[in-house]
């Protein structure tokens, strides 16, 4: 007799995802949704959707949601969590949103130890707007605003968010994961689950940085994009746990 091993998570609405073919946003959406269901916090979760391709996530996560101005997701999350401490509040942000325009809101939420969870999608580019350079773009990476490849002299260096946030007192859990194969997707889910568990235990600010893809703006087939995130991105953004207050 047949038993279901895997199907679409009830943590997702039945709205069709707006993402391009093979985009890891979809994979990571599933992980968050599954975790919210498994921890039984979906009905008290508030998703803060940022501005980026994932802006529509307010329609994908099957819980209440607020759509934030570009970069301010952690400010919205702070505002909401402070008045609703019993709820589970998380943001879902791209690298342009979090690392560029939103770096101040994110750092200060972390520094205050706001009891929220940040899902940080690092795809080394601005997807929604059509492939401009992100602060996380790799040196040499060609984007529409670094057409001869990112040059340190002009465009500066890829910014290392997890390394920087590891120095911040208020951070309770911080891990960088990837999504380029089943093994890493399963590991990514573990990290996301731990982050939400810490929030349930009021441990403080938790963030999971996911090394992701943007096949369309990278100009790669989805499968090749997965490879690039492994071979080109991971060396620059090594995976691992950068902070864990719970660990003894």
């Amino acid at each position: 007799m047949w038993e279901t091993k895997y199907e679409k998570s009830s943590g997702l609405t039945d709205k069709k995802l707006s993402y391009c073919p093979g985009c890891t946003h979809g994979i990571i959406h599933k992980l968050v949704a599954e975790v919210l269901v498994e921890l039984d916090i979906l009905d008290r979760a508030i998703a803060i959707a940022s501005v980026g391709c994932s802006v529509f996530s307010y329609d994908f996560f099957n819980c209440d949601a607020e759509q934030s101005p570009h970069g301010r997701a952690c400010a919205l999350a702070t505002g909401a969590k402070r008045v609703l401490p019993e709820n589970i509040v998380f943001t879902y942000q791209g690298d342009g949103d979090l690392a560029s325009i939103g770096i101040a809101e994110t750092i200060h939420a972390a520094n205050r130890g706001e009891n929220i969870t940040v899902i940080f999608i690092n795809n080394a580019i601005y997807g929604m707007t059509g492939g401009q350079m992100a602060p996380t773009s790799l040196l040499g990476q060609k984007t529409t605003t670094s057409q001869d490849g990112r040059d340190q002299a002009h465009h500066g260096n890829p910014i290392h968010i997890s390394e920087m946030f590891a120095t911040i007192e208020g951070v309770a859990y911080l891990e960088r994961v990837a999504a380029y194969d089943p093994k890493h997707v399963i590991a990514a889910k573990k990290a996301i689950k731990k982050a939400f568990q810490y929030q349930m235990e009021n441990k403080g600010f938790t963030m999971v940085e996911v090394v992701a893809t943007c096949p369309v703006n990278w100009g790669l087939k989805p499968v090749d994009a997965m490879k690039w995130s492994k071979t080109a991105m991971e060396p620059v953004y090594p995976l691992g746990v950068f902070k864990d207050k719970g660990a003894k």
Partner: protein
Amino acid sequence: MPKGRVTFNEELCKGCGLCVEYCPTHILYMDMKTLNKAGYNIIKVSDPDKCIGCAFCAIMCPDSVIKVEVNK
């Protein structure tokens, strides 16, 4: 009787090919003849008996197209 069974919610499929790539038994392929309403080629199973129900295809599918069942 195969270990596993995969079924596709075809209209959600975007033909990204990730499932095909990550299926360890290589039993999935893209049907270049058929487009769904959104204009994407959809995925077919070449050899259902070889499915081991690992669900790798489904785990990697960004659009929750694939349902995986295992024989118990």
